């Protein structure tokens, strides 16, 4: 319960802070570059997730952690 309340408080603080951040639509030329996409190399990322899922005890974080893999 404490964790949920902490997360809710942190989220609301972050969101209120976020409203003063950002750029206008015409300032997005750099952000629109392919290499600035959050997931700019999805094939590499998926291969890596599969390797580390099968070799380590952790998964997930940036996306769902299920692997559809019987390797661990």
């Amino acid at each position, binding site marked *: 319960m404490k964790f949920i309340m902490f*997360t809710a408080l942190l*989220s609301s603080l*972050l*969101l209120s802070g*976020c*409203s003063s*951040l*950002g*750029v*206008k*639509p*015409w*300032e*997005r*030329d*750099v*952000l*629109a*570059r*392919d*290499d*600035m*996409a*959050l997931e*700019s*190399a*999805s*094939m*590499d990322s*998926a*291969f890596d997730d*599969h*390797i*580390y899922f099968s*070799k*380590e*005890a*952790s*998964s*997930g*974080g*940036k*996306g*769902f*952690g*299920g692997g*559809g*893999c*019987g390797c*661990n």
Partner: protein
Amino acid sequence: MKKQPVSATASAAKSKKNVGSLLKSATGCLLGATAMAGAQAESVADGWEADVAILYYNETDRVSALEPAIAVKKTFDDESVVGFKLVLDALTGASANGATASNTPQTFTRPSGNGTYTSSANETPLDDTFRDTRVNLTANYEQPLEDRMNKVVWGANVSREYDFVSIGGSGTFLHDMNQRNTTLSMGFAFEQDSIKPVGGTPIPLGEMKEAGSKVRTGDESRSMVEMLLGVTQVIDAKTLMQFNYGLAVSDGYHNDAYKITSVVDDVTGVNVLSQDSGSLTNRHLYENRPDSRTKHSLYGKVKRFLGGDVADISYRYMWDDWGVASSTVDMHYRFNMSPSWYLEPHVRFYTQQAADFYTTSLTETQANALVANNGELTSDYRLGDMDATTLGLKFGFLTPNGNKSSIRVEYYNQTGTASNVIGQQNSQDLVPDVDAVIVQYNYSF
């Protein structure tokens, strides 16, 4: 020219790709459009983007894998996106069975129950029969909602191996706000796995039997549900940030059916002889993990444009109710050498704390108590204390016809730490390093 607003999560509309007629036909086949002829087939395939890749993974003296993959997607006029991905995974080689190195040669029964394999004295026992082929198909559909500030991404996943079948689905809702500078996301996923170990499912905490014995049970299953909450924020014209919280709850069979634990003398650390008729000479117990697991993860990422280059740094903290806790730092730096090529070094550091029930081996006294109490057990080094490092370099370039291509080479090292080391085991390398090389080629069109 008027600039288009860009969502914080979706990077902007991509330039239209050149698609060779042969490859267009291949894409059309994937869509079931083979019946269409001539210009009609051409129009269906038009607008599809494809990524093909092949990855080679090789561990020194252990597993090697070859993984070809193809992903296709199309963005429609209403901004909806549909995508499919097919991955094949052919694995061969040797895999640690969990038993510890000993000062004498050791014999083990193959997973099928038929035949044996032997490890030399002072060598980590490896099961050299490991061989599998995995086929994985995923489909995604990105559906913008009416006001274009919201969208839903649906996903489906089917995966099949020789001893494992998995189906899963997901749905993620994304909401843009603050002039699309902030994106909130909430997603749910489920997965249902069927586990069919070669030779049947061994009895947890049961002893490894000699070849020919068939003391096994039937197939097993596992289910998992996940939730992922995320915030993506544009900080300034050159910086993006992302935060996620993930929760995954799984229920069912979590054992690796092929992993065992060595039982050794309380003082000398020498393998104990089995008292059970039908068992191997030395006593080895099959692992017994809990039948449920709850995992949490916190993930943060910063991406920044620096004078023409791009820095990408992320951190993940993951913990679960098995006692595992891990930290991962992942860094990429893309040097854009010219508009047509780049170099991208990659560094990843990973450290994990062992599961509460991990032990490198058991003493006879510990083993007897564990069996009497049906305790939890694994000697799978992947659940032990571990540090891992990845070093890589990627070279990306545009082909003469303007398509993206890249090759990357990475080195991956795992260093584990043994626990519960007894007597003669002090002179053994109980958890040897695992070293792997990864080579991958990508081509987009």
